[in-house]
């Protein structure tokens, strides 16, 4: 179905009524399977049991970056193509992306204490992810500061696009600077450098996180559409009461 057909909120709401439960179920099964397999996988020769943090930390980091990228694309959709649901998608993604970003930071800190000896180090990768979190909060603050949804959408879209420069910095921070954080070990030109016994639960868990993100995102989009409908109905009712 082309994206333009979803411009009709009725059609979108009908579609998500089926999609949300399906994605939520898929997320439950995949994350459950990923975590169970993750706990059965052999412990790392160096990190021991702590390697299992990876099954939550790495997928949430990917989602945090992907959600911001989705927001940037949706911002283009708002400013360039003026798709009516683009700003709904961008607004709904911000708090969810921020939550995954926080999850990534917290699990990373819990892993870092036994592995690096500190909850937090001012390392390029960690710092750039923290900046990503701050950018999420800035976008959310801007959304909340402007009361008119149309104007808020455009302002937030410009800020999102400017902040997007941070996404490649997060991705390549481990290559550009000598970082304490390990480099990319799954998406590499020469293939993953993780042993298959650890890689398989990671990929299952990541697929589950993707399903979870879209289930939450579609639900948040649906809520935003309904919230705006309520707002319009309220304004109409107020205008009618005034006319009488």
């Amino acid at each position, binding site marked *: 179905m082309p994206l333009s057909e979803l411009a009709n909120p009725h059609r979108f709401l009908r579609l998500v009524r089926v999609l949300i439960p399906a994605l939520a179920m898929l997320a439950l099964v995949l994350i459950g399977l990923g975590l169970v397999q993750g706990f059965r996988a052999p412990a790392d020769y160096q990190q021991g049991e702590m390697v299992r943090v990876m099954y939550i930390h790495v997928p949430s980091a990917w989602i945090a970056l992907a959600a911001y990228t989705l927001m940037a694309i949706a911002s283009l959709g708002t400013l360039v193509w003026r798709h009516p649901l683009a700003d709904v998608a961008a607004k709904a993604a911000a708090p969810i992306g921020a939550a995954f970003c926080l999850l990534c930071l917290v699990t990373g800190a819990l892993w870092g204490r036994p592995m690096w000896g500190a909850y937090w180090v001012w390392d390029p990768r960690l*710092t750039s992810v923290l900046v990503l979190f701050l*950018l999420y909060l800035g976008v959310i603050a801007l959304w909340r*500061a402007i009361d008119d949804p149309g*104007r808020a959408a455009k302002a937030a879209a410009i800020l999102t696009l400017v902040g997007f420069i941070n996404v490649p910095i997060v991705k390549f921070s481990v290559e550009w600077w000598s970082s304490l954080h390990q480099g990319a070990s799954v998406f590499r030109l020469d293939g993953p450098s993780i042993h298959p016994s650890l890689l398989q639960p990671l990929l299952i868990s990541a697929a589950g996180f993707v399903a979870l993100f879209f289930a939450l995102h579609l639900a948040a989009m649906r809520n935003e559409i309904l919230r705006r409908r309520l707002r319009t109905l309220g304004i109409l009712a107020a205008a009618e009461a005034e006319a009488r």
Partner: protein
Amino acid sequence: MSAALAAILKRDLKLALRAGGGAGIGVIFFLAVVVIVPFAVGPDLPLLKRIGAAVLWIGALLASLLGLERIFAADHEDGSLDLLFLAPVPLALAAAAKALAHWVATGLPLVVMAPILGLMLGIDARSLVAVTATLVVGTPAVTFIGLLAGALAVTLPRSGLLVAVLVLPLAIPLLIFGVAATDAAVTGEIPFGAPFRLLCAISLFFFVLGPIAAAAALRYARE
């Protein structure tokens, strides 16, 4: 075209420097921030000397945030923003002229004050030169990021804190390379030129991106 830009620059400078413009408050704030640091960490000169450049950068960065929310809001209130839209220059260039005027009125005094405050923190001559050079390059970039934030918040009544929240994450790279260049000048472990050139590059990037994004934000705010 350059006459129109010069007129914008002159008008904004006059407005900032005359009574009620608030150009001097930033310097006082800068002074106050630097003065409270020795109270917080203790009057230990070797320590202050070591962190002095960073203190100057933090103080200048925070002081640069003051008044950014008024760059376009004041013009929006009195209607002169509409004249900027009608001006015979691209809106992005007009916005850049406003940012330049704002920096000359508020940022330049901070740069001039920095070496004097640096002496109070016990910073030696070599790093005084380095920190002043990095501030000359870095503080205008903060103003140009703030130009975008000011444009995004143009119609909001109380947006000072919002503008600060929007600017600070984007200004972090400036802070990193500004302080790194100063450290390089002091310790000599890496050449001063490497981080300094990166700082220049980031500043140039924001000199271009800031006005263009601010002009786009202003146009959308009018719709």
